[in-house]
C-alpha cells in the first residue's frame, strides 16, 4: 500500500469571524497534486497549516506520516515550500541565498554550496546567480524560489502559485520544471493555483477547494472522463423538430436563448446524439459536449466564491 503524504481530519482554520478552512478531510498519496480554487478559497491557508506557518484551529493533520504540530522541524527538513509572495533575504546574492537555505535545513556548507549551484542550474539560472536578489526580475525570483525549495532534496514540495507574474514563456518553463519533479525525480509536488490550465498540464491528482471546503479530490484522468452526458447542438433551423425527437427518446431538451438546443442524452459518448441527427438528416453547425467534471467543479468553485463575495 502506498503511504499517504497528506492526511487531514476535520482540519479547520479560523481568522476572526472568517472560516478559511472548514473541516477538510483528505487522504492524499504521492504524486503531482494540483490544489485548485479561486482566490481566497483557502489553498494557501491549507498549505501553511500543513507547514505549521499557521496554527491549526481544530482538527488534525499528518504530513509524510508525521503529526503536524508535534514534529515541526523533522517535517520541514523533508519538505520544500515556495511562498506566493517575494520573501528573500535582502542584500544577498542568488547563490548565497540558496546556499543559506540549504544550511538552514542542515546541509554542511560545502554540500550546501554545491547543491545551490546544481539547483540554480536546474532552475535555469545562469550568471545572474551572482547578482543581488533585489535586482532580479519576477521570473528570476520564481526560479530562485523553486531552487531554494528543493535545494535540500525534500520528499514533498509545496508550490504556491508558482507561475504568478510570469510571461507565457516563463510559465511554460516553470511548469516543465515542476512537472519533471514528480515524473522524473519522484518528488511529490503540491501546486496551488487558481489557473485551471496550469494544473491541467502538470498534475495527476486534483483537489478543488472553495470557501475552505474540498469540493472534489480525484485523479485528473477520472475527472476528465466524467461528464454529465449532455451537449449543446447548434443548428440553423428545425429547432422544434429536434426538440420533439429528443423528447420522444425521453432526453430532456430545451432551446436556449442563444438558439442552441441543449440535450441531456445521459450517455458517455456523443454517438447516440449523432445517430439521431443523422436520422433526422439534420446537419449541425456545431456540437458542444458538456464540460467535464474538472471544468464543471472548477466553475462551481468560482460560483461559490463569487456568491460569497
Amino acid at each position, binding site marked *: 500500500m502506498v503511504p499517504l503524504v497528506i492526511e487531514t481530519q476535520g482540519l479547520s482554520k479560523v481568522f476572526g469571524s472568517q472560516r478559511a478552512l472548514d473541516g477538510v478531510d483528505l487522504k492524499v498519496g504521492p504524486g503531482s497534486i494540483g490544489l485548485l480554487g479561486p482566490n481566497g478559497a483557502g489553498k494557501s491557508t491549507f498549505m501553511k497549516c500543513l507547514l505549521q506557518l499557521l496554527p491549526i484551529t481544530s482538527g488534525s493533520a499528518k504530513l509524510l506520516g508525521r503529526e503536524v504540530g508535534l514534529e515541526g522541524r523533522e517535517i520541514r527538513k523533508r519538505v520544500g515550500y515556495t511562498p506566493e*509572495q517575494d520573501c528573500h533575504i535582502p542584500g544577498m546574492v542568488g547563490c548565497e541565498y540558496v546556499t543559506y537555505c540549504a544550511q538552514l535545513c542542515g546541509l554542511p556548507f560545502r554540500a550546501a554550496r554545491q547543491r545551490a549551484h546544481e539547483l540554480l542550474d536546474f532552475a535555469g539560472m545562469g550568471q545572474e546567480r551572482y547578482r543581488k536578489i533585489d535586482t532580479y526580475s519576477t521570473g528570476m525570483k520564481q526560479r530562485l524560489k523553486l531552487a531554494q525549495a528543493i535545494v535540500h532534496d525534500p520528499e514533498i514540495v509545496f508550490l504556491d502559485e508558482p507561475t504568478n507574474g510570469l510571461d507565457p514563456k516563463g510559465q511554460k518553463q516553470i511548469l516543465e520544471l515542476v512537472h519533471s519533479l514528480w515524473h522524473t525525480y519522484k518528488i511529490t509536488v503540491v501546486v496551488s493555483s487558481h489557473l485551471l490550465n496550469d494544473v491541467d498540464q502538470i498534475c495527476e491528482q486534483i483537489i478543488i477547494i472553495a470557501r475552505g471546503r474540498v469540493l472534489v479530490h480525484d485523479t485528473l484522468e477520472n475527472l476528465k472522463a466524467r461528464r454529465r452526458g449532455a451537449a449543446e447542438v447548434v443548428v440553423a433551423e428545425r429547432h422544434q423538430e429536434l426538440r420533439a425527437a429528443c423528447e420522444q427518446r425521453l432526453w430532456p431538451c430545451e432551446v436556449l436563448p442563444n438558439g442552441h438546443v441543449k440535450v441531456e442524452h445521459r450517455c458517455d459518448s456523443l454517438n447516440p446524439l449523432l445517430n439521431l441527427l443523422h436520422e433526422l438528416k439534420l446537419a449541425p453547425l456545431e456540437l458542444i459536449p458538456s464540460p467535464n467534471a474538472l471544468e464543471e467543479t472548477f466553475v462551481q468553485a468560482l460560483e461559490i466564491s463569487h456568491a460569497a463575495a
Partner: protein
Amino acid sequence: MPLHDISYKHWDGVHLGLWSRRLVIARNSLTACLRNRWMRHLVVLCWVAALGMTALLFMIGQLLVADSIVVRWVGNFNPGLQTFARMLTTWLEQHPEISVSTTQNLLFYFFGIYQIRVAIFALGMAIPMLITRDLASNAIIIYSSKAVSRGDYLLGKFAAAFGLLILTWLGPICAAWFMGNLLAPDWRFFWHSRAALGHMLVFGLIAMTILSLLAMGVSACASKEKSTTGLWYTWWIVGGVVAPIALHTQPWLRHLSFNFNFEQIALGVFRLGDDLNTARENIPVFGDMLRQIRPQTMEALTSPALAGAVIASLLMIAAAILVLHKRVRPE
C-alpha cells in the same frame, strides 16, 4: 545546450545538528552587520581602544615597580618626584593585593562603562540587520519553512547581537586585560587582577544578555529600518538626558535609561565603593586625595540602586520578549 549535467540529483548526506543551524543564522546576521563599512570601522576603533587600555595598564604596571622605565623617565624631569615614586612603588610592591587588584578593578569598571557606549552605538547600527529586514522582506516565512523553529531563529539572532557586543565591547576589554598583564613587570599581575577580570566578565555577560534582548525587541518593533534605528537611539539619548534630571525629581524615572541601569549593575558587580575605601585607608598620599571625594558621591558608589536596576531591566526584557512573541511570526 549546457556543457554540464543540469539534471536534478538527490542528496543522501548526513544532516547537521540543530546547533549548527542556529550558528548559521547567527553567522549570517553577524556577517550582514559587518558588511556595513561604518560598522567595520567601529569594530576597528574598539580594538584600537583596547590597545589604548593596554598602554594604560602597562604604564600603571610600570609605576608599581622600583626602577621601572616610567620611574626613570619621571626622574629625568624631577629627581624629587623620582624619590617619591620610588617610595610609593616600594609600598605598592609590598601590598600587591591592594595595588594591582584595586587599581585594575577600578580601571576595568571605567573601561566597561565607557566602552559600553560604543557597543550600544554599534548595536544601533546593527538593529535593522537583526529582525527588521526579515520582517520587511517576509524572510520570516522562509526561515519558518526550513528545519528551524521560531525559537531557533531568535536564538540565532540573539547570538548575532551577542557576538557583535563581544567584538565591540567585551572582546577588546578582555584582550586589554590579557595584554596589559602580559606586559606587566611581574607574572603575579595575572593572579592579582583575576577579580577585575571576573567582575568584568560577570558584568559583561549580564549587560550583553540584556542589551541583546532589548536590541532584538526594538528590531522587531517595526519593519522600517529607520524606525527601529531611530527608536533605539532615541531611547538611549532620552534615557541619558532624563536620568540625571530625574535624580532630583522622580528617582525611579532614572531606570527608564538602560544605560543608567547598567551603571548601577556595574557598581554592584565591581563593588567600587569597597575598593575606594580600601584605597583611602591604605594607599599613602593617594589615599588622602581619595578622602576628598564628596560623601554623596561615595554614597552613590557604595550603595547603588541595584534592586531598581534589576527590576527595570527585567521589565524591559519582558517587554522585548512580548514584542518578539507578537511580531516574529510568519503571518
